[in-house]
């Protein structure tokens, strides 16, 4: 649905987007991730024909953004970072205005306005001035505006920014429910959001593509070695943690056991392995030794860590260069 090839945006002094390529399949929700200033908004603006790319190409629903901007715009619903609202208009009136701009008219326009009001739960503020709405409502009116012409592709720039937790959940659910009919590309720098809503992630940093994969694969990839967290307690007096370490190291497949500290009688260990091991073996080995097994869970690496790892490695080279320069020859 969205095909981006070698997309580049260069300004006089800096390169905001640097040869980015990715694809988004029909019906997917894709998270577009990156720290502030990474080039997310710029990329989205190029996809929505707001600004032309310096080089490279992008196409939406098989139409090139440079060659057929008018047709592309009909296929796209766009919610910029600040919802484009006119405070002096009432919600319903505003949606009608946007609908007309997108080429709707007559009965169809009326039907779509009714539909999106219902869908984005803004029907109760239909006759209220937008300037008087709360932030959550405004965001929803912004979303309603984006889907008014039933576009194939939805491009949402930080749709949950500045909302309270309840509103964030509502907005997320709304976006998820839109996925079947629309292909969604949403940008954010909030990671749990991606974990919860998206099937695929595209991470960019400083204008460059860092990773593009499914959420699951990314987590696995960054984890490298598989590891589990184990919490153990002893019934008979204090626990000798070096004993536990020795015991666990004997389990097949385990390469390393780290002591993580004790808390109210329980000691935690992290069991690492190069390939894989049976969690059952770990549990059995502890119970057989006469200890209590309190907790056993995979040490899932959150997307946050993946993100930090991926974006950090990009930052290193200039730092090293600075260090090198500081060394007297």
């Amino acid at each position, binding site marked *: 649905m969205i095909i981006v090839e070698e997309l580049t945006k260069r300004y006089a002094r800096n390169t905001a987007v640097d040869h980015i390529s990715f694809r988004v399949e029909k019906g997917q929700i894709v998270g577009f991730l990156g720290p502030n200033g990474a080039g997310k908004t710029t990329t989205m603006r190029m996809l929505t024909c*707001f600004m032309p790319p310096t080089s490279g190409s992008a196409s939406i629903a098989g139409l090139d953004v440079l060659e057929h901007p008018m047709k592309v715009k009909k296929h796209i619903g766009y919610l910029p970072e600040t919802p484009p609202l006119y405070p002096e208009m009432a919600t319903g009136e505003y949606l009608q205005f*946007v609908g007309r701009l997108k080429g709707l008219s007559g009965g169809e326009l009326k039907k779509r306005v009714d539909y999106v009001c219902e869908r984005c739960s803004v029907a109760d503020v239909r006759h209220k001035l937008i300037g008087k709405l709360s932030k959550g409502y405004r965001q929803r009116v912004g979303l309603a505006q984006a889907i008014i012409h039933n576009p194939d592709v939805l491009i949402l720039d930080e749709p949950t920014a500045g909302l309270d937790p309840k509103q964030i959940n509502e907005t997320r659910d709304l976006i998820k429910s839109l996925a079947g009919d629309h292909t969604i590309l949403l940008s954010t720098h909030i990671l749990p959001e991606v974990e919860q809503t998206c099937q695929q992630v595209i991470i960019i940093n400083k204008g460059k593509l860092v990773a593009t994969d499914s959420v699951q694969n990314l987590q696995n990839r960054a984890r490298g070695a598989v590891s589990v967290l184990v919490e153990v307690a002893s019934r008979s007096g204090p626990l000798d943690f070096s004993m536990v370490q020795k015991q666990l190291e004997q389990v097949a497949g385990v390469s390393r056991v780290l002591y993580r500290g004790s808390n109210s009688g329980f000691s935690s260990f992290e069991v690492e392995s190069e390939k894989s091991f049976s969690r059952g073996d770990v549990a059995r080995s502890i119970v057989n030794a006469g200890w209590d097994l309190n907790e056993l869970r995979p040490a899932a690496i959150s997307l946050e860590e993946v993100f930090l790892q991926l974006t950090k490695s990009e930052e290193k080279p200039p730092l090293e260069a600075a260090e090198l320069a500081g060394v007297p020859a």
Partner: protein
Amino acid sequence: MKNALTIYRKELRSYFVSPIAYLLLLMFALIFGFFFWNSLGYFVFIGMESQMRGQPMPMNINEQIIRPLLSNISVVGLFFIPMITMRLFAEEKRSGTIELLVTSPVRDIEVILGKWLAACSLYASMLLVTFLNFGFLFKYGNPDWKPLLIGYLGLLLQAGALLAVGTFISTLTKNQIIAGAATFAICLLLWVVGWVGDYETAMWATVLSYMSVVTHFESFAKGVLDTKDAVFYVALIFLGLFFTARSMESLRWRS
């Protein structure tokens, strides 16, 4: 052009839901009323005096009331134009709604025409209110209405040209105040450049005085439809709107 109509309706509406339109209508009507009352008073004074001298002078409502009145109003208009155009694009740029317009399947020229026509309509409605004054002239006198209509056509054309310039200036900034002040300065400049023609006859002075939007109004004030002057205003409209279109296009490359 259906899209231009959509934009036009939205713009006109936002003029009239805010106090701007009413404030402008009121101020313009007040100032126009004062000028009208003033020229009427002067007209009556001249008439009384000539009667007292015992040698009646030729009196003509069109020449002695309407013509100076319209000339004055053509200058007063310069002060109102910036207030009409300053928000047109600057406000959209500040609030980010320009992204909606640019990413909708609407051509730039449709947006520009819609906005400019809405501005012209607001000015036209300001002029419409002033017809009330002439009601008195027609009731108690018998002025010729054709020169009056041509005078109003001239006012509209002049305003259309300046509104096009103002629309262009509004695309250059996010700040309404800056857009308004700059438009005001340009409007004043386009008036006073005509003054050099009063004492200088060199080529450059002729060119400068030709550029004055007020000089070109003189024929309209007389009630004469001079093609030369009409063409000047129409050309300025095209120029202003053309630059607006260029500026809107460059917005995409710069932002």
